[in-house]
């Protein structure tokens, strides 16, 4: 779906057009549900978060600024923050999450084919993949475990058997290097 189409639908949501929200839902909900599921690992929870996110999209549509972010970024960010909020609540009741399984999945996440496909599809979007690959492997894994699966510093620290403050330093250092790398490619 093109950005212009999404912008138009968000604008119509701001004018309280439910049909526009339904169109957004039909086009984006399977993808957004997958993003939420990856973090929450529960279909029930991901559907709850999807619901919360679309209500927030509806309520906040008038505040969307297309000069500030692409529509997909705005929508996905709403969903991700709701998923992270929910994950934090659920942590109290969940069994300890196992980093190993997701770390293994990371190898599949950035296969050569998918990377090349992404580069072909959208050069700008691929910069983050390239820049992540330029980082030390452990730092890159930390970033991906946190962003893709919602692991906390403590959970990642436990997996690597190092203090949480070291993970914080890795994340911060990784962020700086990523920013430098991304800025040279924009």
């Amino acid at each position: 779906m093109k950005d212009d189409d999404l912008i138009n639908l968000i604008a119509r949501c701001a004018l309280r057009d439910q049909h526009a929200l339904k169109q957004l839902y039909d086009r984006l909900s399977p993808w957004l549900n997958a993003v939420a599921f990856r973090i929450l690992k529960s279909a029930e929870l991901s559907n709850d978060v999807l619901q919360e996110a679309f209500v927030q999209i509806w309520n906040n549509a008038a505040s969307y600024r297309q000069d500030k972010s692409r529509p997909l970024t705005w929508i996905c960010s709403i969903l991700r923050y709701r998923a992270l909020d929910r994950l934090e609540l659920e942590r109290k009741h969940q069994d300890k999450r196992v980093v190993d399984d997701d770390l293994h999945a990371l190898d599949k996440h950035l296969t050569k084919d998918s990377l090349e496909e992404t580069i072909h599809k959208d050069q700008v979007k691929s910069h983050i993949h390239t820049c992540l690959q330029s980082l030390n492997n452990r730092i890159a894994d930390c970033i991906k475990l946190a962003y893709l699966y919602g692991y906390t510093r403590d959970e990642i620290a436990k997996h690597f058997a190092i203090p949480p403050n070291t993970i914080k330093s890795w994340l911060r250092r990784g962020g700086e290097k990523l920013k430098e790398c991304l800025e040279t490619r924009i």
Partner: protein
Amino acid sequence: MSKQIEEQIGRAFEYVTGTLSSSERAEYELLLKVSVEERTLVEFWQEHMLALDQQAGELAPAADTWGKIAAKINPASKSPDARETGGPGLSTWFAWISTAMATVLIAIILIKPMVDTPNNIPNTDYIAVLTDTQGNAVLTALTTAKDNLMWLQWEADSLATENENSETPKESSLQLWAVSKRDGQIRSIAIFDDINSNTLALNETTFRLVTDSSFLVLTREEAGGSAIDEPSEDLIARGVCIRFKGDEA
């Protein structure tokens, strides 16, 4: 790079990746409300990190999820799939929806016949319903591409309430501004000394301001309009400007 900038970048990055502790996150969200610089950093990360999410694949949501969403955004509706409805006992928020929708309908019903012959609906118009902070419609602006005219419908009651609440001296003007969707800049479209104007002739520049805008904003300014060509803080109303296709009426 200074320590402070390093800290800003790192904190924004951790906010977007989701690794700030709940107290750090709550504190940072307060900062985001007031700091453009921090928001810009967060937007930078969100934009770039999105590419990682785009490989998440797809997972069909539960069949009843949309119904639950529809029920939440439209609590007065019995049916989850029902479209816009109205009725007694609605919240202020929902009343705003009704007002906005009603105003759009008024614009369509009352203004369109003035600008169109019955069988000659323009292909594209631009419509903005400007509401105040309470959600009351203050001004509906319909721009017709055919003749570069903006048709105005003022809601005198809403404006009177705004006047009562204003600290600006009575000798004042209203000024209409366009917020560009390209660069976010705010530019003046017109100055009104009263609300008797029902039409506004647009020149090429002001017409483009409308078609390029994401929002229209109405402010109260000193008599004759803003001397510095920037809107005052006396914001009366704002509304999304959308391209309105005739076949959607």
